[in-house]
């Protein structure tokens, strides 16, 4: 006997795409950046990545289970959170603090709101903001890139005992006998001593900084690949970069010895990683076409304002978190003009 025919509602066709596939592709896009980070900072960076990703997954699993939402780890979104968090931390960041950041990010930044799709802010940045406030010393302790022996030994501060102050790295760095090490990232050098590193070094990432934010070139390539697969809205990073460059320009023209050049602003610090992989977080960014432009310009502009005039060296994190919070407001201003609407707007 033939089986009965099926009935569904239209449309009866569906594009072959799903949330887990998008999220998986974001993870793939981040892997080269992770690999470069490990190549640059060695074992410590690897352990940092594993710790944040592992804790993030465990936290997601625990809260999804206790709140009866089933297995939500399989949508892969929490893996992105874990990886992104590690990439924004200093390579020698104590692992126990990284675990705290991952837990807070997923628990307070995501699970509290109801999980994937409901979070207002980017969970990785929520975690990072927490540890920035809680561990101000550790989060600004930088170690040199391409330290000899980085694949055989870890940075001493990595294995700080839980609830202890980070182990000082000064003596360890001195032991490396690097000539040019000043203990500062390119951003700090520029801000406090007005020394601008060559833009090629900053662009390719042959510098110190957070574990995964140093190579602007690599981030750009990975981001463009994701955008070409339509899994990232290129308008957001484009608007962030435009906002940052345009805000810097007048100051740089006024006094180039004091203020950084637009390209230095674009390629230094966390701006690239933030623009391509964190501001573009689908859940926490506006959905309207003109809304994403406003949102991106706001982030880029605010980042520069914080960098130039704030107490902090880097501003992308707070700029994105603030823009995330403004998202619903931006959306209500930028509702699309409906076909055939008479009066205001473009069209007939």
């Amino acid at each position: 006997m033939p089986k009965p025919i099926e009935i569904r509602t239209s449309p009866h066709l569906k594009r072959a795409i799903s949330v887990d596939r998008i999220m998986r592709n974001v993870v793939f896009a981040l892997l080269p950046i992770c690999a470069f980070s490990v190549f640059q900072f060695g074992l410590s960076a690897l352990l940092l990545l594993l710790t944040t990703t592992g804790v993030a997954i465990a936290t997601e699993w625990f809260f999804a289970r206790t709140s009866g939402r089933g297995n939500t780890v399989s949508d892969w979104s929490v893996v992105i959170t874990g990886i992104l968090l590690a990439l924004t931390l200093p390579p020698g960041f104590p692992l126990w603090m990284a675990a705290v950041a991952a837990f807070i990010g997923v628990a307070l930044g995501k699970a509290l709101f109801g999980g994937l799709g409901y979070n207002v802010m980017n969970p990785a940045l929520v975690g990072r903001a927490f540890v920035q406030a809680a561990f101000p010393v550790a989060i600004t302790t930088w170690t040199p890139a391409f330290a000899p022996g980085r694949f055989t030994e870890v940075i001493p501060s990595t294995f700080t005992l839980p609830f202890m102050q980070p182990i000082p790295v000064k003596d360890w760095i001195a032991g490396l006998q690097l000539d040019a090490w000043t203990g500062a990232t390119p951003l700090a050098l520029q801000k406090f001593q007005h020394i601008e590193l060559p833009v090629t070094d900053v662009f390719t990432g042959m510098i110190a900084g957070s574990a995964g934010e140093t190579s602007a070139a690599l981030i750009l390539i990975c981001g463009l690949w994701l955008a070409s697969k339509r899994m990232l809205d290129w308008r957001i990073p484009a608007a962030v970069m435009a906002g940052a460059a345009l805000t810097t320009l007048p100051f740089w023209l006024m006094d180039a010895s004091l203020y950084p050049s637009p390209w230095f602003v674009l390629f230094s610090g966390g701006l690239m990683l933030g623009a391509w992989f964190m501001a573009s977080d689908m859940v926490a960014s506006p959905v309207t076409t003109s809304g994403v432009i406003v949102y991106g310009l706001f982030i880029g502009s605010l980042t520069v304002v914080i960098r130039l005039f704030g107490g902090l060296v880097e501003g992308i994190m707070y700029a994105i978190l603030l823009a995330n919070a403004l998202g619903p407001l931006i959306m209500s201003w930028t509702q699309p003009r409906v076909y055939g609407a008479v009066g205001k707007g473009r069209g007939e």
Partner: protein
Amino acid sequence: MSLFSLFQRPRTFEHGIYPVEHKELTADKPIRRLPFAPELAIPLAQHKGAPAVPLVKVGQEVVRGEPIARAEGFVSVPMHAPATGVIRAIALTPTADGPKTQAIFLKVYEAASQEVLYDLERDLDAMTPEEIVAAVQDAGLVGLGGGAFPSHVKMKPPAGKLIETVIVNGCECEPYLTCDHRIMLEQSDALIRGIKLALKATGAKRAIIGVEDNKLDAVAHLRAVIPKGLPITAEAVETKYPQGAEKMLIKSLLRKEVPVGGLPADIGVAVYNVGTLAQMGDLLPKGRGLIERVVTVSGPALANPGNFMVPIGTPLRFLLAQVGLAADRVGEVILGGPMMGMAVASLDVPVTKAVSGVVALEREDPDLERRKVYPCIKCAECLKACPVSLNPSMLGELAIARQYARMAEEFNLNQCFECGCCAYVCPSNIPLTQYFRIAKSINRDQRK
């Protein structure tokens, strides 16, 4: 072709989607006739407006082409006997819409001729616009693109409105369907006759045939056969779903928008499907009624898909048997195209005037596999797909929160014409289109 035209982007509308077309299955299959089904079921309400009223009694013999039901009022059309035979019953038949509806059951005589024996010669040139409108109603013509709105009603715009342009819709943007493509290639003489009638009846100054650029052979053919001196042009538009939606095609061709809550007549436009006008050009000179239509029967569950001239009232079971339905493989059987068409619950449903296609999808079709529904991740794909620029993401959230009134008042729910683009692109597999259908129907009930 001038050098300039190489750099010209095809005419189009904003947003929309590019589903796989699957038109190669039937695009080069000429329109064929099939034997009559042993029994036809002709529903009395297969058009928008008042149902027709039967003129025949059970046991009465009818001749192919003879009127069997009359129109009830202006927004209604008559029915004609699609075959020679005897009326077996006037009873309920299943339909795709769900509820059963009254239909005339016609037992077809064996060896009944396909020749139409019911003729009334007319001189088209001598007819006044009013006479054409009346003749179109007498022919039982409705929008054959799927709308099934009585064609003569659109020829009489509301008082004070002037029709300037007749748009002839040959887009056929639904995947699988190719019947309009074949009509443009094979019935162009009747089509041009129909366009001339529509121009005369509406008083419009010009007609534009809009065809998606996946059918450039049809555009070239029409341009070659349109007689010199007639204000009729054939234009290619971008192949993009839902290009064939009235509002989208108007925007693509004229860069004008139908105002919210208004009709094409408000901006001086009347839109007719190519199949409707081809039938008009074929039927009116002989005073005949609509008794058959071209239907694309296609899909992966069929052995011999093709385009067929199908008598109105033919049960799907008979039609599908003619083209080799793989009964063990078939999943859904859809009337119309797979984007907006309706899946039938029974193969006893008859082909009506609105059925442009019958698509049989496979059970194992990966496209149909039930996928996991995730929460909305605000990817904004639906906003970029919606041809009327709604915010389906927001509307979906409101539907889940059951704020149906707010959906209509603040987010223009009533502009949604259920094209299915949002649900098609949604990576979270949220059944947005169905949510909106439900919301609209609840809002309608609330108003009552």
